[in-house]
């Protein structure tokens, strides 16, 4: 929330009479006030420069990757399998694999994440147990991705006996991205006014009926934002799928959307990028750039959708 007072501070000072220095402006200028002014504008420019130095790389990198990948980008690139030991062809097999992994992890993580957020926001009392859950959520997102990979290997691949498969990899990804959904949903739920719930209770609805009929429908776009972010996170992850289901190379029939089974291993875009840029010698220059730009483009587009949704949502809010 940007409070009005805060905004005024940022806006009004530069808008003051330009001929006068800021702060002690209307009084006689002293060496002290001049020094103060100088340090003020110096601070502003230094911080601006720092911010731009963070923002600039994103644009430069995007531009550079796109420039390098340009010759190879075509529909054909997306729709053909990698060929000749990954030195030619396109990215169909990894692209479809990533789609499967993302979709399946989404199906697993969404109900658990949304209901967990419902619990935290609607049921949980303010006690040590709730604290423990919150701490667990924070830690779940803080555990290194490679440890998630070890967990997936130990729990799903070996202990549960699923073997290296799309299912095991998706389960690992789902647990890893759960905090994203929980955080997004919780925020959406807490922005639904308490009076909505009270009105519903007053007409005799139970807790769950209230949640289903009033709270969730009013929070749905916020929940969607969280889910979209989960998708983008799951699509980009590499480490958790390394030992749980992703495979170095696998050709599938081109154009067939149902080419993978639940217990098959699959290729994935992120792992494919890793393989062709570090493990395979003599890959044509544009191939890894093309893969990188497809992965990056997909992730950034998904994120952009989530951001747009949030902006639309904020402007439409009725309460």
């Amino acid at each position, binding site marked *: 929330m940007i409070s009005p007072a805060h905004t005024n501070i940022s806006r009004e000072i530069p808008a003051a009479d330009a001929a006068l220095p800021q702060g002690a402006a209307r009084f006689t200028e002293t060496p002290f006030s001049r020094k103060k002014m100088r340090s003020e504008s110096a601070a502003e420019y230094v911080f601006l420069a720092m911010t731009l130095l963070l923002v600039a790389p994103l644009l430069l990198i995007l531009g550079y990757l796109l420039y390098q990948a340009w010759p190879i980008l075509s529909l054909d690139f997306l729709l053909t399998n990698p060929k000749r030991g990954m030195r030619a062809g396109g990215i169909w097999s990894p692209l479809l694999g990533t789609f499967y992994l993302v979709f399946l992890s989404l199906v697993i993580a969404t109900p658990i994440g949304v209901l967990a957020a419902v619990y935290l926001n609607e049921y949980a009392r303010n006690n040590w147990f709730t604290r423990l859950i919150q701490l667990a959520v924070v830690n779940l997102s803080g555990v290194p991705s490679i*440890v998630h990979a070890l967990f997936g290997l130990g729990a799903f691949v070996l202990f549960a006996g699923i073997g290296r498969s799309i299912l095991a990899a998706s389960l690992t990804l789902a647990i890893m991205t759960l905090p994203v959904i929980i955080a997004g949903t919780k925020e959406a739920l807490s922005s639904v006014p308490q009076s909505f719930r009270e009105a519903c209770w007053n007409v005799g609805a139970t807790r769950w009926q209230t949640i289903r009929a009033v709270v969730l429908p009013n929070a749905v776009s916020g929940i969607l934002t969280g889910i979209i972010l989960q998708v983008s996170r799951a699509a980009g992850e590499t480490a958790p799928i390394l030992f749980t289901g992703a495979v170095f190379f696998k050709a599938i029939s081109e154009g067939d959307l149902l080419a993978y089974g639940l217990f098959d291993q699959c290729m994935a875009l992120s792992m494919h990028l890793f393989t062709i840029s570090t493990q395979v010698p003599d890959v044509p220059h544009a191939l890894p750039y093309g893969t990188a730009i497809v992965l990056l483009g997909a992730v950034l587009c998904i994120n952009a959708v989530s951001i747009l949704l949030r902006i639309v949502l904020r402007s439409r809010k009725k309460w």
Partner: protein
Amino acid sequence: MSGRRKTAVLTEKTMEALIRLCGVSAVVFVFGIFFFVFREGYDLLPRLDYREFFTSIEWYPTSQNRVRYGILALLAGTFSVTVLAMLLAVPFGLGAAIYVSEFCPPKRRETLKVIIELLAAIPSVVWGFIGLTVMNPLIIYLFRVPIGLNVLNGGIILALMSVPIIVSIAEDALKAVPDTYREAALALGATRWQTVYRVLLPAARNGLLAAVLLGVGRAIGETMAVLMATGHAVHIPTSVFDSVRTLTATVAAEMGEAPVHSDHYKVLFVIGILLFTLTFLVNLIADLTVRGIRNK
């Protein structure tokens, strides 16, 4: 009770149980992660030579003569890359947070926040690829060193990766300082820089610390980017132009080749336990400091 009423009560009971179950799932998963990683590695724990493990730089897990598991060099790798990343990311991250929160006009603030959010969305393997294809030749060209995959490369990449977290948490912390503080400072004739320096930074201290800690946690745990950008030399770096290997990169690089349930495989899980504990502690401290401000 009518039949419809009964179903309603039943649904209510089932849904509540389900919701409670999902509510505790996060706790279950965190314990599950520790349990299963521990389960694969615990065999080795009594047999492990801890002195060698923590103090030897000799990491020869597949040696024919004598297998040696010394992770000192890997720890040094993780440590050096993380420290360099934080040296770069903390001033820039906090500076950007201060600019976005205190100096920036509201319209530009929204744009900058969106860009920083997008920066956070770039997958780590893409960062690694950037380290490999952009930073590597750049470092070779600028510093005339034989190889650009080194601590400097990994540090810069990690800094760029952890900056978005630092910016967003630090900005929240600054925003949480009540506006009355700012107004009081202005009324005393302070400029905005003086307000930031003398009022806001001390007031938001805990939140800023938490931001830095979460950045550290991210940097320690990052895998793919450092795997691709820091080179593969298991030794203690003496300058930023030395190649290193981190704990995470070691697990990622070697797990594929280690036969299941061999000692090599188990020692990688032991490293996993170590990483889990490290990041757990960092996150716990960050969480406690944040909670500290909320309670005030």
